[in-house]
């Protein structure tokens, strides 16, 4: 299968196989209005299988969300058909409004004006402390 290179935009590479569709949905790429390609289960020397997303003429992706879903992926910025830069993605230290607090008694789950905010507790277990109730929420995406 062949997919042509893009002239400008971004390529999200080395996505763990199976997580490409999740990223596609979480970033609402279907409604972006730019050409988007989602490749799944592509052969990879390093990973065995991987997913790739290419977005033409658009670079402003939510890197916090990407880091949350897969901190090991790479984001390449493409200009004039060449890689002009790489954006580092890691498990974000602070996450706002991307997932809900696990604690049913937390005010963030009860008040529509609250944007759930979390601080990284442990990158290994991908657990976050809620800014409001201080309970732990594990991200299992």
């Amino acid at each position, binding site marked *: 299968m062949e997919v042509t290179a893009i002239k400008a935009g971004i390529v999200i590479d080395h996505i763990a196989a199976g997580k490409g569709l999740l990223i596609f949905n979480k970033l609402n790429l279907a409604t972006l209005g730019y050409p988007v390609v989602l490749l799944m289960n592509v052969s990879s020397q390093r990973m065995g299988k991987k997913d790739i997303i290419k977005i033409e003429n658009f670079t402003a992706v939510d890197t916090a969300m990407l880091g949350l879903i897969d901190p090991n992926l790479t984001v390449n910025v493409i200009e004039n058909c060449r890689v002009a830069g790489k954006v580092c993605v890691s498990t974000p230290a602070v996450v706002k409004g991307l997932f809900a607090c696990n*604690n049913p*008694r*937390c*005010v*963030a789950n*009860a*008040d*529509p*004006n*609250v944007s759930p905010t979390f601080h990284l*507790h442990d990158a290994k277990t991908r657990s976050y*402390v*809620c*800014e*409001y*109730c*201080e*309970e*732990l929420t594990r991200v299992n995406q």
Partner: protein
Amino acid sequence: MQLKGRHLISPNDLTLDEIDSIIRLAHDIRQHRSAYADACRGNILGTLFYEPSTRTKLSFESAMLRLGGQVLGFADANTSAVAKGESIADTVRVLDAYADVLVMRHPKEGAPKLASLYSRVPVINGGDGGHQHPTQTLTDLLTIDTYKGRLHGLRVAFCGDLKFGRTVHSLIETLARYPDSKFYLVSPEELVLPERLKQHLERNFSCELIECRRLEAALSHSDVLYMTRIQRERFFNEADYQRLKNSYILDAEKMREARKDMIVMHPLPRVNEIAYEVDRDERAVYFPQAELGVFVRMSLISYLLGVNS
């Protein structure tokens, strides 16, 4: 030290020096009450109580009135604009114009933190769900300091609901900051200290944690026994509450196993976890503890309003 204008959401908002200053001033207020009778004249305390409270609410009101200030607020969310669907943010943005300091109790955990993001005046957490209750902690520390003369090197047994018991969470997290603390955690399996808090204590402090199911195992070793109520309102399932509510009952017979100089504390209200016969034991200090709560709140209000000098 500058406490004027600050919020108190968690005991961690205060350094140990600041806690010591609040306790020192509370001792002084207790000894020289008349000297502070006008300290807060012209100031108003706003009480935002979204769930029932007797001790905390009246203790705050008493504290402000004894400082010469005034009090306004609501004690039932159903009689305020909240019943019409007003958000916490909007309520606070209105009430901070009516009062100089606010105290909030709310069943949702983190609600006072949310209020503090919108308030122009200090917000004091008067208890949020099973999360924190910092002024109870200050009360407890003042009580321990009064009866034991120190806050370090203590062996403290916490007994009852350690999962939802916010007074336990706040106090254990604060005592852990003092050197040489040892904690006996006595609870049924279903009501153990939350994992996050346990991890936090083990990672960040040198305190020792010993979990046990039987109260007797901790009694003879403890300087302080902190009893708590199994809280019906924190259970989603009534059957679980019924099964666990009588897990621990402290009576005169058990007190015989305790050290002669141990003190028994309780944030109150009690249901049946301390038999009435224990009230006659001089080691039972839970009623003086409630009284000390007024002095420590007087001290705290004075500091937050900047009238402590």
